[in-house]
């Protein structure tokens, strides 16, 4: 297993300790649980957004705990759900009476643990709402979109709900924004190569030297089709077709684009993909309002990428433009950094 690890059993705890050691000004590791919260939490009167999920997806999930984003995160082992106690601990450390939004990807283990946490919080009269991110169009047909898995589109849900919470929106409002964002978000990915779960020590799946799998999930869940690797422009066009038709999006629409690397695919290739997306959207008269290209939700060293489109209206645009800052993601406000460039 070609990895920089010590005892694989300690993989999760050690990398989280590394994160906590690197960013004490921004993040606080809870004493009793593998959960990180904003160093400046709780913030009076602010809805606390709590996320969580398995490890192996950095910067998802803990990378989105910060200003204008989430307030806390419960961290599971690689590809495993965190426990309800971690979720409860994160919620208790960050809530200030304005309620808690649980915002995370649609995976059964996570759903069960967050549900259990909600039940526990209810007993101490802490109100919570849950919004599941279900953006992976490859994982269920369109009429069944609420059954879909959550992938890189999580980023947009954090960004927009986080902006609403930072603007002191009520729990209802923040949950509404999160739901609206999820309903306006579609993703699809393609994988070229597997990753290795440290405790398992061998690749999560096998794939031929010249093959790709369109629609594969970020834990290696089966996709829509496996086939011969095609030129970047063709692969991009296939993903874009699936996403655009799923909305559907018409000329005049405005979108945010996220090109997400799964781990080992170089940034250069992500920009070759972005180039084609830009052309395709231009041809269709769809306007790119903002774009994000890089690693936002990975599967350790998996090869591949995903495309996410978020359909925007005025409310969502304003929230998207709001500033955000975590150790892993920084977006200056409309004025830019350093007071104007």
């Amino acid at each position, binding site marked *: 297993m070609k990895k920089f690890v010590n005892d694989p059993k300690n993989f999760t705890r050690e990398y989280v300790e590394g994160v906590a050691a690197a960013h004490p000004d921004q993040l606080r590791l809870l004493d009793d649980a593998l959960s990180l919260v904003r160093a400046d939490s709780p913030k009076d009167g602010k809805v606390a957004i709590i996320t969580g999920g398995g490890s192996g997806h950095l910067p998802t999930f803990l990378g989105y705990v910060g200003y204008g984003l989430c307030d806390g995160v419960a961290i599971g082992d690689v590809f*495993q*759900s965190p*426990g*309800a*106690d971690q979720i409860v601990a994160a919620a208790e450390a960050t809530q200030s009476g304005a309620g808690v939004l649980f915002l995370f990807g649609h995976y*059964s*283990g996570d759903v*069960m*643990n967050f549900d*259990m946490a909600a039940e526990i919080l209810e007993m101490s009269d802490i109100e919570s709402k849950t919004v599941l991110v279900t953006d992976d169009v490859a994982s269920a047909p369109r009429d069944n979109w609420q059954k879909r898995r959550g992938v890189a589109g999580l980023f947009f849900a954090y960004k927009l709900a986080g902006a609403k919470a930072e603007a002191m929106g009520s729990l209802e409002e923040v949950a509404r924004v999160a739901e609206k964002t999820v309903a306006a978000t579609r993703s699809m990915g393609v994988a070229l190569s597997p990753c290795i779960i440290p405790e398992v020590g061998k690749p999560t799946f096998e794939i031929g030297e010249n093959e790709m799998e369109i629609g594969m999930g970020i834990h290696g869940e089966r996709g829509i089709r496996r086939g011969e690797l095609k030129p970047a422009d063709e692969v991009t066009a296939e993903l874009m077709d699936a996403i655009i038709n799923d909305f559907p999006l018409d000329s005049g629409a405005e979108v945010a684009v996220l090109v997400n690397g799964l781990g080992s695919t170089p940034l250069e290739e992500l920009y070759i993909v972005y180039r084609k997306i830009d052309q395709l959207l231009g041809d269709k008269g769809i306007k790119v309002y903002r774009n994000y290209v890089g690693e936002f939700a990975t599967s350790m060293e998996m090869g591949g990428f995903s495309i996410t489109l978020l359909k925007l209206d005025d409310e969502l645009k304003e929230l998207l433009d709001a500033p955000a800052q975590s150790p892993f993601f920084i977006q200056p406000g409309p004025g830019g950094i350093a007071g104007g460039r």
Partner: protein
Amino acid sequence: MAVKFEQVAAVLGKLAEEVANKKEWLVELDSAIGDGDLGLTMDRGFSALANAASEYSEDDIGKFFMTGGLTFNKVAPSTMGTLVSTGIMRMGKEWKGKTELTPEDVVAGLKAAANGIMERGKGQLGDKTALDALIPAVEALEESLKSEEMREALKKAHQTAVEGFEKTKEMQSKLGRASWFQEGSIGKPDPGAGLMTVIFSVLAKDDLL
């Protein structure tokens, strides 16, 4: 017959022992159609629960189970761990404020647990899960209690759990990790259902309840 917390703690101690005894067996079952962690996580969970019981100084049974669910989940946030935790907490809710349990209370608690697990995991009979042993066993217990003593009824329940476990062999998994195997899951019994047979085997032991 009415059960006090002392006896509950004794049952939980025995249960932790028995799960530890069956650890390897559970790992084997889960390795065949899952990731093989079931024996390890359940061993951790039940021994933490038994520990907590041995240190519990009050007599409110409901309150103990309420917090016991979280204790369990903390060391076992796996699928089955979360479902068992949910079951434990639901028993706690059902038994809120009680310092002793009648046979009816026991049935009501187990029913609440089974319902909690169904609710949390959105599973049904026939999905090839722990429910396929748990639900028939609880039903058998309730039915038997109409005409028989607790001891006998628990033995029936255990027997039914084992039958339910056996039947999962022929089913195709619809939920959780095992469902990824699709038809490949047929022919192998469900590990979670196996856990239920261990639990009921302890409840059915002489001199406990």
